[in-house]
């Protein structure tokens, strides 16, 4: 017994040191993320679509992007490259810098590193939707870089308004991992919205610039001449052709964000939601024009067998003639960071769960515009009943019917 007893202090050292060693071995050092990861999946997509090498174009796009948009530690908003005033003030640089970088707060409860605190685990550093926890979520977190948003008040192809982004942050998306940030201050939410717009603009700019590099600037296995080289974006030659192309591209992207408010879908006054309206909605829901039952099933039961994918998945599968279930064909994209293709299923409407919001106005817009990035199509709204579209009143009838399905539960 004595010998065991005396040895205790000597054994205690490894006991104390072991957890530290194990932790270090498992996770390594906490180096700050100094660069945004490039969009390698899209680079492969462009290469496959255009049958052209994109390595060099991707490399230069990354360098150009960093010159214009900065880094995760020091983000920039390239106002000097924008022609519209609305674009220059689209986001606040102070908010971007508050949302980026390490997490901390001060005595007045002002929080910094908001994106790292609230979003990065799912959406990833560059907002690519492939953060550490993304693979275990269904649906996957949104990839901001495509510039496509589901939950908005605007037309299908338009960007969301700031209020739309704030609404999704406040309310979350029930039935998904997207939380409600109601407990977070309005200032912090505004900063997060700015950062999401920034990541989206930056990501879309990366995609379009990469395409332009191959299509317009002549990037192949070698760099084009200096005038068309993307490296000029980081230099002082502001008259170079590449800079001109990049500015045009940036203007087009930011312009869509600036004009988002004008793309809000008008909602006519709601019609009375009585039994008659629900009955008419039932007929329209199962009818030929709206044909909601074609995907959502009879009475919105969601029991139809469908085989479809969202647009984010289709981009690296069906968009380039790759079968989503063909593991071998998908493997290069998975290696580049794409998440496993996963089917998208129409909502079961009898549960009364609406991820993007269930108030009547939102449902009206959802029926009219559909859901961008998904197979959920919109419908044409006309003043008079026709064989191809619905009137506003008929859309309201469908809204009332859909609401009745959820309320029946």
């Amino acid at each position, binding site marked *: *017994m004595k010998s*065991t*007893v*005396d040895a*205790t*202090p000597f054994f*205690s050292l490894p*006991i*104390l040191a072991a*957890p*530290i060693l194990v*932790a*270090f071995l*498992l*996770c*390594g*050092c*906490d180096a700050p*993320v100094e660069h945004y*990861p490039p969009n390698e999946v899209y680079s492969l997509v462009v290469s496959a679509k255009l049958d052209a090498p994109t390595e060099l174009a991707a490399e230069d796009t990354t360098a150009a992007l960093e010159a214009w948009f900065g880094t995760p530690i020091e983000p920039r908003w390239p106002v000097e490259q924008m022609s519209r005033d609305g674009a220059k003030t689209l986001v606040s640089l102070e908010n971007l810098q508050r949302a980026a970088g*390490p*997490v*901390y*707060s*001060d*005595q*007045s*409860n002002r929080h910094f590193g908001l994106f*790292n605190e*609230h979003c*990065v*685990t799912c959406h*990833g*550093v560059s907002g690519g939707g*492939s*953060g*550490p*926890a*993304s*693979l*275990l*979520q*269904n649906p996957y977190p949104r990839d901001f870089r495509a510039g496509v948003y589901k939950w908005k008040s605007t037309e299908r192809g338009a960007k969301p308004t700031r209020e739309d982004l704030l609404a999704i942050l406040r309310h*979350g998306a*029930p*039935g*998904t*991992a*997207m*939380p*409600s*940030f*109601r*407990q*977070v201050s309005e200032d912090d939410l505004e900063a997060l919205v700015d950062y999401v717009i920034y990541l989206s603009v930056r990501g879309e700019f990366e995609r379009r610039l990469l395409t332009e590099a191959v299509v317009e600037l002549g990037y192949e296995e070698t760099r084009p001449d200096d005038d068309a080289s993307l490296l000029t974006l980081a230099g002082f030659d502001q008259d170079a052709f590449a800079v001109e192309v990049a500015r045009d591209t940036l203007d087009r992207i930011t312009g869509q964000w600036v004009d988002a408010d004008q793309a809000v879908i008008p909602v006519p006054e709601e019609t009375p939601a009585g039994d008659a309206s629900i009955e008419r909605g039932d007929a329209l829901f199962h009818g030929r024009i709206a044909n909601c039952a074609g995907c959502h099933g009879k009475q919105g039961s969601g029991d139809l067998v469908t085989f479809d994918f969202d647009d984010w998945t289709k981009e690296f599968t069906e968009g380039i003639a790759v079968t989503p279930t063909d593991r071998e064909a998908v493997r290069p994209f998975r290696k580049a960071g794409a*998440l496993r293709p996963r089917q998208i299923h129409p909502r*079961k409407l009898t*549960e*009364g*769960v609406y991820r993007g919001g269930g108030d009547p106005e939102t449902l009206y817009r959802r029926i009219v515009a559909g859901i961008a990035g998904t197979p959920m199509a919109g419908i044409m709204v006309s003043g008079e009943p026709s064989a191809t579209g619905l009137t506003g009143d008929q859309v309201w009838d469908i809204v009332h019917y859909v609401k009745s399905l959820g309320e029946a539960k």
Partner: protein
Amino acid sequence: MSENETNEATPNPADERSKLLHRLAVLSVCLVWPLIWVGGLVTTYDAGMAVPDWPGTYGYNLFLYPLSTWIYGPFDLFIEHGHRLLGAVVGLVAIAMVVAALRREDRRWVLWLTVVILVAVISQGALGGVRVLLSDRTTAMIHGCFGPVVFALCCVAASVTSRRWWDRRRAANATQSAKPLGGVVLAMATLPVLLSYLQLVLGAQLRHVQPLTTPGTFTLIVAVHIVTAFGLWLLTPVLFVLVRRCGDLTLSRPAGWLIWFVGFQILLGTGTWIVNYGWPSVLEFLPFGEGFLVRSKGFLDSIIVTAHVAVGSLILATSAVVLVQVLRQRTLATHV
């Protein structure tokens, strides 16, 4: 001669033990577990950097930071500064334990145990300081992994200084027939300590995940975490049955608690996932999951997550106490 008569004849060493040391050890247990709760809340609320300096608080000495600013200030600052204050109190208790052991503790290894606890508490405080000064998440993770070790050491100290620790020797002397628990039991008692600590480290990996960790790595850690949890749960009843055979309640009781603790911990783990990442697909068959809304920084949600952290420490500490008691039983039975 009856057992009672033997006990009456033998002087009871329990009467000679340091009651003060035991009380201090129990006090340390009662302080460190809440300290782990508060530390867990600090991480849950991302409040680790609510006070940018260390060892002071916004330029003040730790103990002199204005009470009103602390109480009525931001919640993040409240819990971070509170965590530091409670940690300092634990440090004082750890010093008192060493002094009490020096004054009246014959067992050198117990004296060393108190020294180890003091060193561990100081190291843990220093780790917390480094985490703040470097704003480093990895150090935060190590800080989070080391806290349960301190708690387990305090629980072991409380166990070995208790009256029951000595009463068992009397009982063993009296019966003269105790058989040592076998190597299998020792191995089965060691496994929960290792597995529960592995679980803590894996959990910390998920909690302090680095932004560039790949989804595949994260998923693998989650999978190992879940499989190990169920493995540990299956192990606990086996351990309970094995240690129960020696008829010692000080062994079988904590071994029995382990079954409940690990079962409860699995529920808390499920809850932690749900409040962080929503309703998992594998639980879709449950009727109330559809439409579940995750709420960032919700109070109840934070309590569930933090409870998962705290109960993890409790499992490690209970496993450690069971292991120490098994070793004790083997030693006593061999020396009878």
